[in-house]
């Protein structure tokens, strides 16, 4: 099975390096200052994932080390983390060293890695932290929620009835509501749909605030029963070994919004792999384990295909568009005297700098509407959203995408020249 792990890792590296996926603005902020390009990021992510696999297999139960390695090599969660959340994955690696480093100096090194990775990735963390449980259970927020519930009850009764004051105090009060909010948030983490089919089951996951795109599955559907089997096998010895890891790992997952579980719950990733491994160990029938292995091979093949070759079906297209615009500029900018690029859907200037297209006197980044433009330079080209470019321009090319990044502005990017220039 170690051969399979090796093959899986080589495949992952080949896909990560060979199939461009674009770099997100968060990654540009976090890594751009080091001068790291997309390929560097992919290789770094692959190395981090490899270390996580090795450490988890080594630290987890030795008997199931091979299975743990197989599970993590095929893991959609780790694959996604190594591609799009590299700093968070490095933080996880650091935490593993802190908890299980053995020697004191190693643990301190782990602390340094954790602190450094959080600082380097502070912009992404700030965004993730913006909406958290704290704001929901703040004293004034609780007061508003208590008042709102009673107001709606009163209006729902046609302003004819209200519970007696004492009953209202018992049923609607802030401490009870706070406990309920925390409790519900904790239960919300056990969401099989979010774990294995966040987009296919969006009718349900959308109710928990998950967006219709951009959320990766954390595990395969067959891993859920195996995980449950593993949990049922937890004994005191296991609990004593991992309890602080689990408790510390749960905190950010509960505290932060559910849609960020992929990063907020990342500490739970190795634990999940170890528990799934324990679950597999409970399958006593040899052919059952063979079937599971075959499912991992087929499932990971499908997952890699979906993740790398059908990117736009599950990701928002912004990172892809930044990259495609840069590629187009690289090939075509010499043919134009002026190029105006939209920043309507994100930090275009930063992204073009990252891809080496800026600074360039020819290129100007701003919002526009071609219909209202009067180009000062004759040979000017506009790169923008369909609504910005369409109507008043001769379209030279279109970069197609599946989603509308700005409501009402159309899908993808159009590149065109103003008519009658």
């Amino acid at each position, binding site marked *: 099975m170690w051969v399979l792990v090796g093959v899986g890792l080589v495949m992952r590296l080949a896909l990560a390096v060979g199939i461009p996926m674009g770099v997100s603005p968060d990654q540009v902020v976090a890594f751009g200052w080091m001068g790291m390009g997309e390929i560097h990021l992919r290789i770094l992510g692959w190395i981090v994932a490899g270390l996580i696999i090795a450490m988890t297999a080594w630290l987890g139960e030795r008997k199931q080390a091979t299975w743990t390695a197989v599970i993590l090599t095929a893991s959609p969660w780790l694959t996604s983390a190594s591609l799009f959340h590299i700093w968070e994955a490095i933080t996880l690696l650091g935490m593993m060293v802190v908890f299980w480093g053995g020697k004191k100096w190693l643990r301190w090194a782990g602390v340094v890695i954790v602190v450094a990775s959080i600082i380097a990735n502070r912009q992404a963390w700030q965004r993730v932290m913006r909406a958290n449980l704290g704001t929901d259970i703040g004293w004034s927020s609780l007061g508003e929620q208590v008042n709102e*519930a009673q107001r709606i009850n009163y*209006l729902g009764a046609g302003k004819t009835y209200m519970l007696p004051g004492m009953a209202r105090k*018992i049923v609607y009060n802030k401490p009870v509501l706070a406990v309920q909010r925390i409790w519900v948030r904790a239960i*919300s983490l056990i*969401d099989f749909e979010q774990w*294995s089919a966040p987009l296919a089951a969006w*009718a349900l996951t959308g109710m928990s605030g998950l967006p219709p795109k951009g959320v990766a599955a954390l595990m395969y559907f067959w891993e859920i029963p195996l995980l449950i089997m593993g949990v049922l096998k937890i004994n005191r010895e296991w609990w004593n070994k991992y309890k602080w890891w689990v408790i510390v790992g749960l905190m950010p997952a509960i505290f932060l919004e559910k849609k960020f579980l992929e990063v907020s719950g990342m500490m739970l990733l190795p634990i999940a792999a170890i528990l799934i491994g324990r679950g597999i160990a409970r399958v006593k029938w040899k052919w059952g384990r063979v079937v599971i292995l075959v499912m991992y091979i087929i499932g990971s093949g499908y997952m890699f295909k979906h993740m790398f070759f059908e990117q736009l079906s599950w990701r928002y297209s912004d990172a892809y568009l930044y990259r495609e615009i840069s590629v187009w500029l690289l090939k075509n900018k010499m043919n134009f005297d002026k190029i105006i690029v939209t920043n309507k859907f994100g930090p275009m200037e930063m992204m073009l700098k990252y891809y080496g297209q800026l600074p360039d006197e020819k290129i100007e980044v701003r919002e526009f509407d071609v219909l209202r433009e009067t180009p000062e330079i004759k040979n000017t080209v506009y790169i923008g959203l369909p609504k910005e470019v369409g109507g008043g321009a001769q379209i030279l090319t279109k970069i197609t995408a599946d989603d509308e990044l700005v409501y009402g502005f159309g899908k993808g990017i159009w590149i065109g020249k103003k008519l009658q220039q």
Partner: protein
Amino acid sequence: MLALIVGLAALLRLAWLHKAPPAVNWDEAAQGYNAYSLWLTGKDEYGYKWPLSLRSFDDYKPPLYAYLTAPIVGIWGLNEFTTRLLAAVSGIVSVGLVYLITRKLIKDKAVAMIAAGMMAIEPWAIYFSRGAWESNLSLMLFLVVVWLILSNQYGWALALAGLNVFAYHSAKMYVWIIVGWIGVKLLKNREGWRGSLVGIIVAGLLFGISVTKGAGLARFGETSILKVGGAAVGEVTQRYLAYFSPVNLFVRGSNEPNQRVDGFGLFYAWEIIFWLAGMVWLVKNIKENKFLASWVALGPLPAIITWSWFNPVRVLPLWAANAILIATGIRQIWKRLGGTTGKWVWGSVGGVWAGINLGWYFLALLFYVNYKNFGDWQWGFRETVAAIAPWVDKSDRVVWETGQAQPYIFVLFYTKYPPEKYQKERQANHDFGKYEFRKTFWPEDQHLPKTILVGGAYSLPIEKAITRVYDPQGYESARIVVTE
């Protein structure tokens, strides 16, 4: 104690039954009116005599709910309360049945009492008892079947399981699971096989009738996963797991608008600990509890072959099994609580917490839904029918514009339109008598003589309105104009 629990169940199911939910929805109106029609004419709304399937909106509803409701609406009149009463009574009876079943399954009176108590207060059990949900009637029949099986009355159990297919579509799947269970039992012990054989024949006949009469598999054909590109293993498994996903059970509930109360799952969030404890207990004692384990494991089957991810109304028997599991979990944890003081402290805290949760849920059901989610219940027809009532006799025509589908059934329901008359006057698009259901166009419709026009705020001029209907949030939901 059981009487108190049943009393509480009755209170939670019958109190303000006519007002909460705030109006009858399409299906309730159809059940009520067809029951009314059957009582007065022996025919459904289409004029089919003693039908074995109600055509309704071409969804071919199983007819048992309407047949059993017919005498209720016949004697006490057609209204929200009488239409929903059968579901509410089914819910109350189910509480008692859960007690009887749990006593036989777990052989512990305390667990049986707790299970009945849980069944009385569970959000899903209250919710589906407060609308004319035929699935709740089917649940009650299913529980009787289970009780008969546990009492070794296989013949009667099978016959009743066969009858249940006329109560709700899901029973068409459950009946074969029951036949299979009893078949396996009989293979091991042939005692009483004659009665069972008769029962299997009866169940098979009833099943056959239900699927051959009036396109009885129409609903299955519409919603089946098989229709949408093959039952892939992954798709089916993921849907199956959705019925055990804690967030669905304890937090999120269904995404179907009229199957949910915002902020609540099917069970209270606090119950998860006991549910988990019950599950662990079941896994550890699976050999002695094969029936309960099979009930839990096979419970989602009728729903997973349909395309939707999580549709709780289709698997109410599964939730009843979960209530028993939760009761078992409570008992298991109670045993481990230590001394009397510990039990008192934790019991009191738990009791208060459960009471507060029940308060939240019931108040939300009574008031929040009425104010915030009235649209999910097709609110407004009752009020509009009352608003136009003074002019209907003096008018030649009523033109009704609405964004709601199937508006005719609400008008039939709230006007108590004579079924015999409707059966004769009904047109292909469900217009009848003076009533036309179409878009209004004021420049032309204003010239229609003696016509009541019912429309929205953007379709009829405000200066001509004789009255307006406002929704619970104070927005205009209907504007009424009467021409001369």
